[in-house]
């Protein structure tokens, strides 16, 4: 399994040195994504989802650094690569898609120019060859009359169409792994499902592994194979989507699932998680979630729970030992 993993993150710690001391934003994450697998990463804003993705592709904002741990992609350790080596991997081995399609494309270059330059940086293609591939790729991501659209500028595309272009750009050099950071959050609700379905289809067709970052459990339920739930810089639950949606173990996961309207329509009661995530410089003792947890007990305040096996998944909660107390 480990040898086959496209992405293998081991004990990742990301820090930001600030004037008031070092902030630890990612506090030890382990995860793997297999070939063709879609791993959803979910959690509230500030949980550390984007940082995890940025660390993998080596684009942490200046100041941010990987303080501990290792990142392996296709069996190769990449977290200490020199810039030039990392640039060869970006786009070619690891593709990235960001949140806002309106601002992700250079306004002064045609869509075709941006596709062609990316392909030609990574592959030995003539301009004409790259052009032909670009047209096919635009077709594949569902852009009508691509041979005309390829000569157009980003402002001539709608938001949804632009995100399709962004997807084409992320996939144009045929990466093994795609990191999609909230790819539909900025889009119109009516288009979100289309884009998510498109992402899923193109990754399936190519056997590309994907880390799909979102704060929307609904998107995960429809798209991902497995899911990692993040809270305050750690994974608090990870496992197959089906079993986690059906039987979440961590109280935080239960709260997230409770907030999907479509999944709770019948239950009438929408589970809310009161309070907000602790700030990085004010992490509570013990379980980081305990101040918001309805089930918190003495041990939760004292000791931090590690990820523990729970059926087909793993969760970091002391209550896994004594399920009874969950019934509130």
């Amino acid at each position, binding site marked *: 399994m480990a040898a086959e993993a496209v992405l293998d993150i081991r004990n990742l710690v990301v820090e930001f040195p600030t004037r008031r001391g070092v902030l630890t934003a990612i506090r030890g994450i382990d995860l793997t994504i297999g070939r063709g697998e879609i791993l959803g990463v979910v959690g509230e804003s500030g949980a550390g989802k984007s940082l995890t993705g940025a660390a993998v*592709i080596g*684009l942490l904002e200046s100041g941010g650094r990987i303080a501990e741990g290792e990142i392996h992609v296709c069996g190769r350790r990449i977290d200490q690569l020199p810039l030039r080596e990392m640039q060869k991997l*970006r*786009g070619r081995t690891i593709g990235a898609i960001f949140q806002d399609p309106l601002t992700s494309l250079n*306004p002064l270059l045609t869509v075709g120019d941006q596709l062609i330059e990316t392909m030609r940086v990574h592959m030995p293609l003539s301009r004409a060859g790259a052009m032909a591939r670009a047209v096919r790729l635009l077709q594949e991501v569902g852009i009508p009359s691509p041979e005309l659209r390829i000569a157009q500028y980003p402002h001539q595309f709608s938001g949804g169409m632009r995100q399709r272009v962004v997807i084409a750009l992320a996939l144009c050099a045929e990466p093994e792994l795609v990191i999609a950071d909230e790819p539909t959050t900025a889009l119109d609700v009516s288009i979100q499902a289309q884009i998510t379905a498109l992402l899923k289809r193109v990754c399936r067709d190519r056997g590309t592994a994907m880390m799909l970052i979102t704060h929307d459990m609904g998107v995960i339920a429809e798209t991902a194979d497995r899911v990692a739930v993040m809270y305050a810089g750690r994974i608090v639950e990870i496992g197959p989507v089906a079993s986690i949606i059906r039987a979440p173990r961590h109280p935080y996961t239960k709260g997230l699932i409770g907030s999907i309207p479509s999944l709770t329509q019948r239950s009438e009661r929408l589970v809310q998680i009161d309070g907000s995530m602790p700030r990085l410089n004010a992490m509570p003792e013990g379980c980081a979630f305990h101040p918001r947890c309805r089930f918190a007990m003495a041990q939760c305040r004292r000791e931090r729970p590690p990820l523990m096996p729970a059926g087909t998944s793993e969760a970091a909660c002391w209550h896994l030992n004594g399920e009874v107390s969950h019934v509130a």
Partner: protein
Amino acid sequence: MISMVLRRIGNAVAVMVAVAFVAFMIFQFLGDPVQLMLNEQASQAERDALRIRLGLDQNFVMQFMLFITRALHGDFGISYRNQQDVMSLIAERFPATLELVLVSTIIALSIGIPLGVYAAIRKGSPIARLLTMFSMIGVSIPSFVIGILLILIFAVQLNWLPAFGRGDVVHFGSWTTGLLTPSGRSALVMPALSLALFQISFIMRLVTAEMLEVLRTDYVKFARARGLPNRLVHFRHALRNCLMPVVTMTGMMIGDLIAFALVTETVFQWPGMGQLFVQAVMFIDMPVMAAYLMIVSAMFVTINTIVDLIYLWVDPRLRQAGAARGYHAH
């Protein structure tokens, strides 16, 4: 696209007509030229003859039309001061000023832009800090101080370069250039540098500030995430998006320099328009002042139109018909 180009040219023409009107009004309200030009003993017949020669016997509208028609032919009348043809006075001076200003602007762009890019992409490095410091000094020292320092070092001490004048010039019809003779070129070095130093610093600071902003944008981040090498990210993606303000400011700077090259021209005794204008003001030499106003305005308007056209060329968003959004320097 073509209609937009035409509209901008139409605007330019409208502005020039307005300027011509102002220039014309200067004549109307600032005293009687006949009084100024002739001495007190002149006879009434002499006065009337001059009045007719200057077209002052016509009505207001006719005079304005005449003024514009003549201006279009490069005829701005004769100088009150020395009775010479105004246009030939200006034609002697204008090439010198334009050459000085354009050469120093080209120096400024070709040094200022690369330094600005460097200071942005190597932000925080010792060299970038040094550059930023120098640029701060560069924008704060007046150009005449630099001019005098240059003269002291390179003319007085080292005796490498001439301290004043324009050297030998080559004539092309009514145009003159010093760029084709060795003495012309060496005479241009110091005045151009002393004008350029401010511009280099200014453009460098502008490019650095714009680059730092553009380097933070999502599309630059996405370009990096696609594995584009720094060369492409910095120049093709980032710098291109910084060019609008640079074009705007360069346009304004060229206009300013032509209008106010006076100080540098005085320091280096450069035979340009600045000196001509000072003399015209002291003598209340109306035709020269009006012609100067028209020509400097024509330069401003031309530069602005070129700047607008460069916008259309660089930014596809502005090319769309009906796009009213424009770029403005901050």
